[in-house]
């Protein structure tokens, strides 16, 4: 009997998903032939809300784009605002910012390791890593006053200083975590069940990773050496020495190894930061009104490159804020990775990009000015509309496309 195509909807409420998302899988037997994602269940309209609030209020709002990489979003936003205002943040402030961002990376990667274990039915790993994760959560609570959504940043610096008594506490926790991570590396590389389960699942070749615009550990596990901290150093990364971890496995196993490697690098970075941290002020006074201008800021969040665009108009509120969260770049990659894979691999393949749909969710609705009708546009229509609109403005994408293609070929 020939196999029929079956369409399977997963979500928005599903034991596999931690967030409300909807995936429509097309199956032929056990194999996935196609997948579409339906975004928008988590869409709250933060970009629009930012326009109605002042810069200081926006900082706290942007922090709540995502509750795992909250420091990433607020730092990325503030870097753009500081660039427009032309503020020189004191060195110590930048060091503290970087310290928190590395601690956040530790907590996020440990969290991911546990979730990955859970998705393959290895709940022991979940319980182990989450127990250890509490150590770094305690340090974050000690330094910032809150476990998540730290509220550490302010325009022109940071809000809290680090005292001398806190440093030994951080260092001893980092030592413990390093020991534990070494054990996880041992589990990851030597435990046969884990290795066999993850190897060959969710394959993504280097060419595809570049072509589809994968970011973060997902791209680095496919051998793409791309890390904003290294390529375009922000804060104090230019003064620190660290390795960009890449791997050639190009599958979920590779992504696990990259994240474990990044954990070890993060411990090294935290020690360096505490050693090199200069004395001095932590914040400069920032004007309430930001002069007109625009800026794009890049930041390497635990999940990949985060991009914020801010346009100021001289008042105390921004005119436009745009967030490109790392998961948005990676979500197309998931559709590609799932193709020709097995249904049973879906949870771990989706989890392997470390998805954060609260960052990603967006809705597209267009209102026709002529007749006031509101329509939903699908992706190809929107794309054609965009190209037409820009060509009317005198911007031709054909030339850019050609350049991009030659770049890709030379890569």
């Amino acid at each position: 009997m020939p196999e029929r195509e079956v369409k399977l909807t997963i979500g928005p409420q599903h034991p596999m998903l931690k967030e409300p998302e909807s995936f429509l899988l097309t199956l032929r037997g056990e194999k996935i032939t196609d997948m579409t994602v339906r975004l928008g269940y988590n869409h709250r309209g933060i970009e629009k809300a930012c326009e109605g609030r002042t810069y200081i209020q926006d900082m706290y709002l942007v922090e709540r784009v995502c509750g795992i990489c909250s420091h990433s979003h607020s730092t990325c936003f503030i870097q753009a605002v500081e660039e427009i205002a032309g503020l020189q943040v004191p060195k110590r402030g930048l060091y503290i910012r970087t310290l928190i961002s590395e601690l956040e990376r530790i907590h996020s990667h440990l969290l991911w390791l546990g979730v990955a274990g859970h998705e393959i039915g290895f709940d022991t790993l979940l319980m182990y890593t989450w127990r250890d994760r509490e150590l770094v959560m305690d340090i974050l609570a000690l330094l910032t006053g809150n476990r998540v959504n730290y509220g550490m940043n302010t325009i022109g610096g940071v809000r809290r200083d680090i005292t001398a008594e806190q440093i030994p506490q951080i260092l001893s926790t980092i030592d413990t975590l390093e020991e534990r991570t070494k054990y996880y590396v041992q589990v990851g590389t030597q435990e046969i069940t884990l290795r066999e389960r993850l190897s060959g699942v969710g394959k993504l070749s280097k060419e595809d990773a570049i072509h589809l615009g994968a970011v973060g550990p997902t791209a680095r596990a496919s051998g793409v050496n791309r890390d904003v901290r290294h390529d375009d150093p922000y804060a104090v990364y230019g003064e620190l020495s660290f390795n960009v971890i890449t791997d050639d496995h190009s599958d979920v196993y590779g992504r696990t190894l990259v994240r474990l490697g990044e954990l070890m690098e993060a411990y090294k970075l935290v020690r360096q930061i505490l050693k090199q941290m200069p004395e001095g002020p932590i914040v400069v006074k920032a004007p309430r009104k930001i002069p007109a201008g625009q800026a794009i800021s890049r930041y390497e969040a635990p999940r990949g490159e985060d991009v914020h665009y801010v346009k100021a108009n001289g008042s105390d509120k921004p005119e436009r804020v745009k967030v490109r969260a790392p998961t948005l770049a990676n979500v197309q990659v998931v559709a590609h990775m799932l193709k020709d894979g097995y249904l049973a691999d879906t949870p771990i393949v989706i989890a392997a990009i470390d998805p954060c749909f609260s960052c990603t969710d967006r809705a597209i609705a267009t209102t026709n000015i002529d007749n006031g009708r509101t329509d939903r546009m699908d992706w190809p229509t929107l794309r054609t509309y965009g190209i037409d609109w820009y060509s009317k403005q005198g911007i031709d994408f054909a030339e850019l496309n050609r350049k991009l293609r030659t770049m890709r070929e030379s890569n």
Partner: protein
Amino acid sequence: MGLVQKIVTWARIKSPWIIHFNTGACNACDIEIIAALTPIYDVERFGVILRGTPRHADVLVCSGPVTRQIKDRLIRIYEQMPEPKFVVAVGTCACSGGVFNGCYNVEGGIDQVIPVSAYIPGCPASPKAIIDGVVKLLASVDNASRPAKEAVVSGT
């Protein structure tokens, strides 16, 4: 209260099965809910188990403000749960809409859509607050003189 009823109440309090549903949260509260289930905080010692389907669950744990797109789904999940059912709103957003109040896609707190039995405020609600809320909810179920549907607030 008859003997059978007493046994039923006892069983309900000793093993409340929960389902977690993210109604538009930023993930912070969701992570704290999972953290409450892992070894350091371990609400499983109260018999709490996370289930995958609303049909198995007694308690619906919601986090986040209700977005317009999730509203119908939330009502559907609530209706799928067997009686008696309890709803716990975790986090400031779930209690009142929080920072997202006034956003075009946000309806407000959970209680705008379905009845809520316990409110656990905090941004995010820490695992300790979640445990406090769960224990208070169970105590309110245990206390037969008190109507179980009256909302409890953690930390008070």
